[in-house]
């Protein structure tokens, strides 16, 4: 089955023909996402950049054999992930995700102190409800996006991996489950923890 978009198919053809404009376009379309994938496996920025560089060499060598059975993005990200692993730069940070999924016990999406206590009239209801945020344009300003970036960097590895793939890179729940070997529930719980923390970081920033 071929799943290439017409745009991706055009870029692949261009790359095969040695067209530098096609290469530059591919790099600009997928390069930042590839760098982010690399950073999921290695801790230093320098290592991640080297992984991306090696991965692109792998892409150039492999493009002739690329058959479009997966989307171009999936194929590129797989090459980056494999490059990171074969370089042996995998380290403690990339412990098995399924094992880490159990870390969630005792985590709360919202600080429990913000809800009314059990001895009172509306237990579990908002004591300190969320305040209104600025309208969307402000939410998408560079400074706000940097707050999100930092919040994601501070997440435990499994949560960071899931929110990166789902919400930053736009993979489906099923693709993430397969890539990270997670159950449906664990995928969702990790995503929920991660999103909740990013929302909390935004709330703190907006407040």
């Amino acid at each position, binding site marked *: 089955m071929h799943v290439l978009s017409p745009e991706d198919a055009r870029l692949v053809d261009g790359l095969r023909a040695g067209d530098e404009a096609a290469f530059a376009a591919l790099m600009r379309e997928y390069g930042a996402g590839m760098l*982010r994938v690399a950073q999921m496996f290695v801790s230093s920025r320098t290592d991640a950049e080297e992984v*991306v560089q090696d991965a692109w060499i792998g892409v150039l060598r492999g493009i002739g054999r690329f058959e479009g059975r997966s989307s171009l993005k999936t194929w590129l990200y797989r090459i980056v992930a494999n490059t990171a692993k074969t370089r042996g730069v995998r380290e403690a940070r990339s412990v098995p995700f399924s094992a880490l999924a159990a870390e969630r016990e005792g985590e709360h999406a919202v600080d429990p102190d913000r809800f009314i206590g059990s001895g009172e009239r509306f237990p579990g209801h908002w004591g300190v409800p969320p305040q209104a945020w600025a309208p969307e344009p402000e939410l998408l300003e560079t400074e706000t996006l940097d707050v999100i970036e930092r919040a994601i960097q501070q997440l435990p590895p499994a949560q960071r991996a899931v929110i990166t793939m789902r919400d930053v890179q736009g993979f489906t729940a099923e693709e993430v489950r397969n890539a990270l070997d997670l159950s449906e529930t664990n995928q969702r719980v990790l995503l929920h923890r991660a*999103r909740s923390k990013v929302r909390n970081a935004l709330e703190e920033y907006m407040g």
Partner: protein
Amino acid sequence: MRLDRELACNEMVELVTAYIENALEPVDRERFEEHLVFCDGCDRYLDQMRATIVATGRIDRGRLPADLEERLLEAFRGWRAS
């Protein structure tokens, strides 16, 4: 997922992702939505989670560092010449 009684806000906030991902049973989905009708706090919370997802989708603003782009272009030219 199956819930067995009226939802409190501190339960709502734990179900937001299941709700957005359409993973709640129909009866629970209804219960979740009923709570939203009378609870401004949870309604706002849900909106903020959705806004968070939208904003998170924008953090990859594209360009690689210029020096990395340059190294990649050089690698490409080397490959083309080989």
